[in-house]
């Protein structure tokens, strides 16, 4: 970029060109993305831990408290997606907003909202599962395989 060019005009052109490139080119931001994913994902889990401890404090046993926490986080994810906040979080958080269960809720609500004009059956009803469907299919598949393996090997 700092290469000496012949005239000042050329230099100016080169600088402008570089500026333009910097605007368009995707930067090597994977370090920044990784840090943001860590911070956003960690914060969501921190909120989950807070909710979990509130439920265990109410006297729920561990497994039920965990299920109640999942449901609460799913509610928050769906609500924040509905009011348009979760997409903002997702812009910065990347995988930090996708991997937690709130991201699973987001993956259900976002396509369903978009598909509402296609009707309640093939619109909302079907498009809800654009991403959640594969997740459930492979989740059930692997859980049955694990169950059968355990049955055969125990």
């Amino acid at each position, binding site marked *: 970029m700092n290469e000496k060019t012949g005239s000042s005009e050329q230099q100016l052109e080169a600088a402008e060109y570089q500026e333009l490139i910097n605007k368009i080119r995707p930067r090597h931001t994977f370090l920044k993305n990784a840090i943001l994913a860590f911070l956003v994902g960690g914060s969501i889990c921190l909120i989950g831990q807070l909710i979990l401890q509130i439920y265990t404090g109410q006297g729920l046993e561990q497994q039920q408290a965990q299920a109640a926490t999942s449901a609460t986080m799913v509610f928050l994810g769906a609500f924040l997606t509905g009011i*348009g906040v979760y997409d903002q979080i997702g812009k910065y*958080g990347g995988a930090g907003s996708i991997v937690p*269960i709130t991201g699973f809720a987001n993956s259900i609500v976002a396509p369903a909202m978009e598909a509402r004009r296609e009707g309640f059956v093939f619109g909302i009803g079907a498009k809800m599962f*654009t*991403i959640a469907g594969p997740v459930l299919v492979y989740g059930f598949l*692997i859980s*049955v395989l694990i169950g059968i393996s355990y049955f055969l090997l125990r």
Partner: protein
Amino acid sequence: MQFLLAFVIGGLICLIGQLVMDLTRASITPAHVLVGYVTGGAILSALGLYEPLVKLAGAGATIPLSGFGHSMAQGAIRAVQSRGLLGAFAGGVESTAVGIVAAIIFGYAAAVLFNPKE
């Protein structure tokens, strides 16, 4: 301390997903990441490797989708212990029923009640 562990472990689990998305082919979408986390979590859980993480980090390990896979795997194993082969089919759904139905109900409600932002 429990909060710090939830933050750090949960953050690291998400960071791995970000690296997978950034450093691999562009054809790896969020859907692939989520499917990978559920499947990976279930396999780690079946090998007995995920439960220690849950003990250590609490929600830091259960809130990421790998925790969903863990819950499915443990549900299937517990159901086989109590009901035999039939349990293999029922256990995974049973242990995650609350989360799945909550996602469908709250997801449906949000999709009906809110308009997409342009």
